[in-house]
């Protein structure tokens, strides 16, 4: 039988999971878990492939499991799934350390990066060339933004919390609804420019960093933890005047963040040694709490960690209540 836990999923959660796995192996008498990345979708897919030794035990996710996925899980006999939300990930804008400071609002970002903007009641292609074109208070620097590609969960958060919010706040959404219908307007709000001002990044934050390195005028979207590890190269932008940090994200002041999850296959508890212990270990205060190694790395701890611990030790499964 397999004696190590197998974990797969989101690459955003991956660093946290590896830290936990390492500490788990060090401090407990279990074999070290094997942790894979591969993306939330891929992780959940393997997770939902069935119950048994050659399926994984834990799926990491940077978003909640979707209904369609849950249905597939159930269809494959994976009925008892524990959902564990262990913290938050802040999403930040950062530019090269040598460049000017940016104090952004969602409106600015929307106006700079939307494919089409409303001008004089008409929908026209976005022609803004510098940030100053968008908002005179911003530096007159060419607009180049490195945004996670559509495969990334971060992109979804970006679209929702920045683009859509900016669209709404700037009043463009209203105007759009007037021009078309509600659905189309929502879509138009999050459509990004394709003329090279907004560059999709299918790789990882390291790629974004490298791109900013080779084009210092660029502005990139990063995870908070990534930024914190590279403050010597990056300068972070404030959003609505709030600088991102573990504290501001936890307090909700900083608007762009998302919850992180992992899912545990309850049916494997008991067959795979250490599975329950792993889940519990993950959410202990010493690990996922503030001051723990995860927070040290950049995780925004869940303020309600105690509840989470409760959920784990009770082995509460999804849909139980």
């Amino acid at each position, binding site marked *: 039988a397999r004696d190590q836990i197998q974990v797969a999923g989101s690459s955003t959660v991956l660093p946290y999971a590896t830290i936990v796995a390492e500490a788990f192996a060090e401090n407990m008498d279990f074999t070290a878990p094997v942790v894979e990345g591969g993306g*939330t979708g891929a992780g959940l897919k393997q997770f939902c492939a069935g119950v048994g030794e050659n399926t994984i035990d834990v799926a990491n996710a940077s*978003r909640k499991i979707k209904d369609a996925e849950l249905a597939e899980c159930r269809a494959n006999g994976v009925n008892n799934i524990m959902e564990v939300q262990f913290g938050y990930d802040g999403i930040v804008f950062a530019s090269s350390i040598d460049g000017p400071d940016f104090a952004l609002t969602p409106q600015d970002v929307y106006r700079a990066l939307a494919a089409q903007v409303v001008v004089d009641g008409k929908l026209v292609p976005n022609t803004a060339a510098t940030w100053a074109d968008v908002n005179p208070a911003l530096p007159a620097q060419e607009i180049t933004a490195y945004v996670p*590609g559509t*495969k*990334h969960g971060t992109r979804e958060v970006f679209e929702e919390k920045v683009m859509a919010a900016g669209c709404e706040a700037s009043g463009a959404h209203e105007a759009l609804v007037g021009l078309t219908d509600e659905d189309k307007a929502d*879509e138009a709000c*999050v459509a990004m420019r394709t003329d*090279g001002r907004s*560059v999709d990044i299918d790789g990882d934050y390291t790629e974004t960093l490298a791109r900013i390195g080779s084009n210092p005028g660029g502005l990139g979207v990063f995870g908070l933890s990534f930024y914190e590890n590279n403050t010597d190269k990056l300068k972070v932008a404030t959003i609505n005047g709030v600088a991102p940090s573990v504290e501001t994200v936890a307090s909700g002041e900083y608007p762009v963040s998302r919850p992180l999850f992992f899912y545990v296959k309850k049916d494997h508890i008991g067959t795979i040694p250490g599975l329950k212990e792993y889940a519990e270990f993950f959410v202990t205060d010493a690990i996922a709490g503030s001051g723990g190694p995860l927070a040290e790395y950049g995780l925004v701890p869940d303020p309600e960690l105690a509840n989470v611990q409760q959920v784990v030790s009770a082995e509460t499964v999804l849909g139980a209540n």
Partner: protein
Amino acid sequence: MSPFWIMIATLALAVLGYLLGRSRSIRLAGGDTRALHSRPGYHGWNVALFTALPALLLLAGARLFHAPGWVAPAALVLALAGLGLSLSRTTPQFRARNSVERVIRGVLVVCALIAIATTLAIVLSLVFESARFFQMYPWQDFFFGTEWTPSFGGGSKLGMLPLLWGTLYISLIALLVAVPIGLYAAIYMSDYASPRVRSVVKPAIEVLAGIPTIVYGLFALVTVGPLLRDWIAQPLGLGSGGSSVMTAGVVMGMMLIPFVSSLSDDIINAVPQSLRDGSLAMGSTHSETIRQVVLPAALPGIVGAILLAASRAIGETMIVVLGAGAMAKISPNPFEAMTTITVKIVGQLTGDNDFASPETLVAFALGLTLFVMTLGLNILALYIVRKYREQYE
């Protein structure tokens, strides 16, 4: 006993069988091996093969189909039976060579079929998920759509034409770099360079094929991209992005050089010297000889090498991701960012999307489409080779 040890035991029996079969044939021939139909070695091999093969097949089958536990030990019995039977068949007249060769031939056939089996398995593993995709997404939009904008909330546009365009464009540039350089390098190595130079240069160039593609990707991103941007694209007003089809193509071309050069070099080297002599004696220069006599004779192999390079170009991800960006776009300007089918296959499969959504399943459809397309390309290549092949001797 675990299957592993049963396997070892079977192999040991086979070795024993070889020795027994061999010595028995010699003994039956009264020590004069000339009286045998086949050499003693063949008799030995015959026994060994009959001992090992059925048993190993049984073992493999048992593993594949999760057979009950008693099946594995039964393999040992089978091995013993094979040993006894084939040993009793060992007579001086026994056509052991033919028997062994039949088995070898069978093995060869099986090996050739592995390729077919792989293809089938690939098609099968793609076709179901592709079917699911086409249930969710209209095929017209997929094949003829010119927009690729997947999104999480649904309502994605998943037209493959921009990806196809990017694939062809990048591969073309890569081949434009790799084929001339590779071919000229091959020619130089096989026909001009001294054996010493060749013995150093060839393996050195082969290292290029072994450098992980991520290194090339970073190279494209950090070095080649800005270089092309600052020296060519911007002065010519063709764009200001560091990642472009050109960047990815050029760097990929570098990686493909050894595929063209090393394989072609071997093939060119295999063209008989007498042909070169024939041409040189007509007063043609070395280069004329190569272009007009050697290369046509080596054509099938060279086309094979180029195809292999093209195949790698089509299948490459890392260099494209880092070098050409992730923008799906149809544009004739090689200094714009584009992307390829393969990149999107990997991207959609490893992303955070809902795994049962068209955004993920499109990867399978892309894979299948690419498969069919390259098939067409290969058929064309085969036709061309058949037509222009010059068989020597």
